[in-house]
């Protein structure tokens, strides 16, 4: 693929926003599963590790600052790995969520709070991405009123 124009988006912050949107939408899926399975016996809540994602994103930003080509390539794979491994994070690993007598540890209230928080992050990232795209468009056309 030609790298002449792709570099415009792979530089750093826009790419970071894109990956963050990917991450929050994957996390959304996990949280929806938790809500849907709130009454499934033996179901353990699933979540994606935000700390791990933030660590990888931080590394990608550092690589991007050094202008290494495809700084976010690794993160892309990492993100897929994170998504594929939306592994069970029981109350033991996150230290919360009471285990009920039916072996289910979903707390609907907490899942709904996380769902709202995650959706808020998603909206913020997509609004910022939109802003970035519009600014690029203004720079390309040279019209300040663009976007």
């Amino acid at each position, binding site marked *: 693929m030609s790298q002449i124009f792709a570099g415009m988006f792979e530089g750093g912050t826009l790419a970071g926003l894109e990956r963050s949107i990917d991450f929050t*939408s994957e996390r*959304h899926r996990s949280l*929806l*599963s938790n809500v849907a*399975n709130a009454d*499934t016996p033996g179901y353990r809540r699933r979540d994606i590790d935000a700390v791990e994602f933030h660590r990888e994103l931080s590394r990608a930003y550092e690589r991007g600052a050094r202008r290494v080509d495809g700084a976010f390539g690794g993160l892309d794979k990492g993100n897929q790995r994170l998504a594929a491994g939306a592994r069970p994070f029981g109350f033991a690993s996150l230290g919360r969520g009471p285990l009920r007598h039916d072996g289910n540890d979903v707390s609907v209230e907490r899942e709904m709070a996380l*769902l709202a928080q995650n959706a808020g992050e*998603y*909206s913020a990232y997509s609004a910022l991405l*939109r802003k970035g795209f519009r600014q690029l468009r203004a720079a390309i056309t040279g019209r300040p009123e663009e976007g």
Partner: protein
Amino acid sequence: MLRTLDISASGLEAHRVWMNTIAENIANANTIERDGKNSPYRRKEPVFSVARNGNPGAVQVTGVVEDPSPFRMEHDPNHPLADAEGRVAYPNVQVIQEMVDMMMANRSYEANVTAMDVTKSMFSSALRILA
């Protein structure tokens, strides 16, 4: 993103099945006769499990099973269906417990509706990037 609506839809469906089962249990809380014999209604319960294939993470109802707990026996020798010892078997349905279950099913159903709304608002905020 839109496919994740299926997950919430599966939650809605499962809890609707549960609601139907509860309604059936309450409606038949005093059903004691079948084919002229004292054969009471058995309480039913749906079995939920995580969907293995199809949409991973969704919930599915693998079946509706009957509650094996013993029937409630009442001593009523004058009852036409009473057995030799004058006992009549009633369904193993406890209406209070059904009401509690109904509240739980209702709460979970609404949680899935709200989750669906959240998904829709996320989807439209993603679409606004194009505007």
